[in-house]
């Protein structure tokens, strides 16, 4: 029994490291085989490894920031407005929706749309309380900062910090499946936002950002893997993530070499990276990613 455990641990460790070193210079980025780890083995991933993976997932604030840089105007059409926080029967629904609305909150905060953010904040509060993590969500202060419009940084700090605390609490209290759901919800909504915007504003930078999600998609699947056999809801979500992954399979990410350039600026250091990553993705591949993301995201918010 002990020997078997050691074997499983070594296997998982080897697979984890192969994931980290998969992207080589001047070589294509390929999916590591980590996602083929049997569910039982993936479950043995350490808490530290899961914490690291959860940190790698793109922040919706980054997506919203990119949209602002590209001068994309705000649109409420991208939000998951149809979600009713009172009609989330299961812990699965609550946690996933908490993630989806967290991404929407990030988008609203960045565009300083305070009126809408108060509605979403109320839903987040209900869901957080329903998941018994309401104590980490400082609703009143976030609401005050939203209405004041005076301090975006404090608002972002407090919003992101609340989610980080919830995530940590869930993982520390053996409710890691809810933490994974929340993170998957955040990512999926961010991906939905980016893919919907790119239809109207087909900027190459935004296209690249969508293609580059291939880099972290495997990590996202690793977060879900331990729970795929838990129940039918999780099983279905795992299949959906595999469908998204399949759409990314033939997208190539290559790298060019270069040395960073540094210069002292205002008492600090400014470093310009000259290495680059290049995404090779056809319009047809992008269209498929847009479509599949929309189908899966809409299915999940409708089920709710």
């Amino acid at each position: 029994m002990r020997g078997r455990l050691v074997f499983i641990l070594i296997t998982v460790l080897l697979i984890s490291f192969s994931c980290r070193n998969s992207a080589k210079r001047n070589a294509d980025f390929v999916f590591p085989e980590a996602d083929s780890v049997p569910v039982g083995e993936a479950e043995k991933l350490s808490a530290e490894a899961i914490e690291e993976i959860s940190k790698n997932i793109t922040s919706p604030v980054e997506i919203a920031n990119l949209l602002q840089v590209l001068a994309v105007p705000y649109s409420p059409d991208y939000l998951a407005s149809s979600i009713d926080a009172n009609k989330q029967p299961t812990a699965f629904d609550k946690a996933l929706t908490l993630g989806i609305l967290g991404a929407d909150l990030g988008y609203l905060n960045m565009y300083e749309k305070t009126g809408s953010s108060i509605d979403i904040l109320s839903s987040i509060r209900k869901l957080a309380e329903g998941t018994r993590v309401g104590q980490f969500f400082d609703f009143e202060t976030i609401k005050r900062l939203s209405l004041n419009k005076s301090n975006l940084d404090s608002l972002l700090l407090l919003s992101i910090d609340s989610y980080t605390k919830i995530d940590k609490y869930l993982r520390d209290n053996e409710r890691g499946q809810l933490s994974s759901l929340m993170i998957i919800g955040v990512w999926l909504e961010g991906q939905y936002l980016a893919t919907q915007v790119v239809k109207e504003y087909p900027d190459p930078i935004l296209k690249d950002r969508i293609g580059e999600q291939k880099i972290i998609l495997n990590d996202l699947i690793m977060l879900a893997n331990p729970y795929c056999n838990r129940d039918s809801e999780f099983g279905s979500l795992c299949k959906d993530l595999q469908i998204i992954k399949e759409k990314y399979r033939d997208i190539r990410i290559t790298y060019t070499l270069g040395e960073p350039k540094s210069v002292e600026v205002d008492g600090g250091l400014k470093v310009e990276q000259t290495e680059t990553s290049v995404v090779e993705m056809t319009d047809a591949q992008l269209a498929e990613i847009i479509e599949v993301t929309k189908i899966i995201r809409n299915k999940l918010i409708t089920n709710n």
Partner: protein
Amino acid sequence: MKKYFITLFFLFTLGALVMGQATDPLVSKCVMNAGPNAKYLKDFRVQLSKSTTTGELRYKAQMSLWKNTKYRFSMCNSEDSKGQLILTIKDDANKVVLSSFDQKSGKAYPFVIFECYKSGIYTLNYDFLDGQQGSGVGVVSMVR
């Protein structure tokens, strides 16, 4: 009686303010110091005892950084920190992408602006200068 109520009101308000700012004050201060163009993304609270060995920076965390994004990495120290917080970032091939400490001049910069052109998962390595004991926070923001 009036004084009693005023004191009670004052204590209640103070309590509410403290509750409302449960975020680490050093993190808040460090975020604010990043300037109006910086938008907060993440923070890493670093507390280390004095190192018995030299070499590798001890606190490690992974983070995905994205092409065409300008990041600001701020390093802030607690008042009682003996050492100064420094940062080195390595890419997935373990190549140093940036360091806030210039070994040639011996200068440690309080912040680094990084113009990223290669998306990927990077390792942020924090420590205190010369392996000193210290307490600080590393804040990651986006800048325009």
